[in-house]
């Protein structure tokens, strides 16, 4: 059967990485819908933390589904059982499939053994978002942290994931051409997704280590 077959059932699924023809969504379309999503929840939330929680729970279900989709599309069917490999899976495969690029870095917290950080210097969800001063610490990437939590939970690594907007230090991140959106100055903050695993996940991983 030829690849260009017109029947939708005969056509191959998009390749992981989201670069296949027709599987890339316009950033503007996403930005408008995301903006509406945030506004919808903002009207119904009494506080900043409730708004974040609402966005996270909206993303959580997406995360579960994304995990199924990526697992199905992957060339080799393999279930990640180790902590580090699932984190690599999230910061590379999941990120590529959702945003078309890998996360910029994956770090382990120095202070807490159960905390990891996934860092994205150009988080897509907050590309056009300016958080007003009265909303203070709100991170517009809470939705993405919900997705990460969904993926991890679905894979059997229950974790609490929170998004934080952190100022980028001078010279920390330099990319040619500045911002990926022409005309808009380079971003001053990065998104840090703090992953805090449950104790049972850590003890299981420790047991596998032996």
């Amino acid at each position, binding site marked *: 059967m030829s690849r260009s077959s017109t029947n939708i059932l005969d056509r191959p699924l998009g390749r992981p990485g989201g670069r296949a023809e027709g599987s890339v969504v316009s950033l*503007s379309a996403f930005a408008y819908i995301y903006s509406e*999503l945030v506004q919808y929840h903002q009207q119904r939330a009494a506080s900043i933390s409730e708004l974040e929680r609402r966005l996270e729970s909206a993303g959580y279900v997406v995360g579960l589904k994304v995990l199924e989709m990526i697992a199905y599309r992957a060339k080799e069917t393999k279930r990640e059982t180790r902590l580090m490999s699932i984190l690599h899976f999230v910061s590379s495969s999941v990120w590529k499939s959702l945003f078309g690029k890998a996360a910029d870095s994956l770090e382990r917290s120095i202070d807490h053994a159960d905390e990891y950080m996934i860092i994205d210097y150009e988080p897509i969800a907050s590309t056009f978002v300016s958080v007003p001063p009265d909303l203070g610490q709100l991170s517009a990437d809470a939705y993405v942290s919900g997705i990460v939590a969904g993926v991890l939970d679905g894979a059997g690594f229950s974790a609490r994931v929170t998004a934080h907007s952190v100022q980028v230090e001078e010279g920390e991140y330099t990319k040619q051409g500045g911002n990926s959106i022409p005309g808009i100055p380079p971003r001053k903050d990065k998104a840090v997704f703090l992953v805090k695993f449950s104790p049972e996940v850590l003890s299981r991983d420790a047991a596998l280590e032996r």
Partner: protein
Amino acid sequence: MGFLHLFIVNKSGGLILHRSLGPTAPKIGTNEWLRIGSTFHSLHAIAAEASPVKLPGNKNSGEWAHTNIARVTSTTFVRTCVLSFLSTILFLLPPWHFGFVSTIAGADDGIEQIEGGGVILRCLQTRTGIKFVLTAEPGTSGLDAVLREIYVLYSDCALKDPFYELEMPIRCELFTNAVDNLIDQAMSGGVMPR
């Protein structure tokens, strides 16, 4: 030569943003700018009425860039309005001599440009009635390109921001930063329209 001020007026005449763009910009307070914004809005409406080219429904439509349009006639009436408008509030820079210029690109109706001895004012009206108005010293080039670019930035940074409400004052940090960036670029090398 240089840009002076940018102000944005919503479709009902309310000022939603004003920003000084250069060191030579007159120091005028927000209240004054609110007045200037709504006065300009009224003048714009009067000019559209006075235009000899009119389509039914008071809508002068046309090709975005080329056709048209609404050549603002220097009727004594409009002239007087503008003169009183500028002399009361705007810049007290003699000598006054006004010319109404209707040029390509920009608004469908109303005022596109006002030239004074010490200032040029250029306006871009969008399809939804928002007016981007840029003032500059005479001889400054590229006003049109800058206005169009500001329109793009408005659509990107304000309209896609979940915390921006339509018709309300723009308080998006991203937008103001981008405008500053754009003006720097325009001053150093010119802006290529996208």
